[in-house]
């Protein structure tokens, strides 16, 4: 099933945004939209004393017809807000660190899986267990990494995709079913 391809940039930004919107709306009762790099970087570099926050990043590797990784970076207050919506917690503050880390990992897993399913409907894929990192957003110097700047409930997030989705082998296959 696995076909060798050279890493390629994500060809359809709309597909990624659609997948993230799907996850946000259906699991988190939240609203996702496109955003700007400047908004993310302003939030990421703001001191704690000036409205800044800690950040969480979750990375998941995917393999199948294509291989690569997706990394999601979100500010902690947004992570807590979304986790409360997901779990039914009464307040974001009552969420413990273990649950928060587990949730961000699962969120990256859902975003990656939903995106891959939308992009390559006919091919199964595998995802690794998410790796979650707490701290300031890290730069990504990978040459083939694509950085996407989005917002969820107006808070900036970043999604990095390395590798990615090649065009389907032929359109006939997609139309066959």
């Amino acid at each position, binding site marked *: *099933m696995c076909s060798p391809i050279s890493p390629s940039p994500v060809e359809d930004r709309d597909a990624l945004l659609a997948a993230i919107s*799907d*996850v946000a709306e*259906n*699991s*988190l009762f939240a609203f996702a939209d496109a955003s700007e790099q400047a908004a993310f970087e302003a939030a990421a570099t703001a001191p704690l004393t000036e409205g800044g926050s800690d950040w969480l990043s979750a990375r998941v590797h995917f393999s199948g017809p294509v291989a690569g990784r997706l990394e999601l970076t979100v500010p902690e207050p947004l992570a807590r807000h979304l*986790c409360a919506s*997901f*779990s*039914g917690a009464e307040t974001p503050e009552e969420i413990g660190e*273990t*649950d928060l880390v*587990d*949730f961000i*990992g*699962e969120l990256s*897993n*859902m975003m*990656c*899986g*939903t995106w*891959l*399913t939308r992009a*390559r*409907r*006919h*091919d*199964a*894929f*595998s*995802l*690794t*267990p998410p790796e979650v990192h707490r701290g300031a957003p890290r730069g990504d110097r990978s040459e083939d990494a694509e950085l996407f700047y989005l917002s969820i409930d107006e808070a900036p997030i970043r999604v990095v995709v390395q590798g990615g989705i090649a065009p389907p082998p032929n359109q006939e296959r997609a139309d066959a*079913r």
Partner: protein
Amino acid sequence: MTEPSSVNAETPTALNILIVDDSAMMRTMIKRAAGLTGLPIGQIFEAADGQQALAVLKQQHVDALFTDINMPVMTGIELLQQIAGHERWQHMVRVIISTDGSVARRDEADRLDVRFYVEKPFRPEVMRDVLSDLTVAR
């Protein structure tokens, strides 16, 4: 394999269910969604991977298995392959809840007697529809 239909109002008996997912938060979300259905749920067992699920299945009576696919140690597909063909679990309903909604994976699930395939993310109403169909079908 079928998609869940709308809720049927017939009165069913309580279901024992096993939820298999490596994310504790996802297991919590599925339990919460099951609780919101208002349908009679018996015992809810949990496992973080297929191997843990097998251990539960060998010790407990389970009517419906809800399993993720991508998990460490033993995947959901491997779990379903392990229980396939065993008389003990012949009547246990298999449900996949996964982010992988590809046609290839759905075909694989079909071959493993999976009755429902739920794609993450899902709204709580989907769980209600699945459980309603299961309880009525018993």
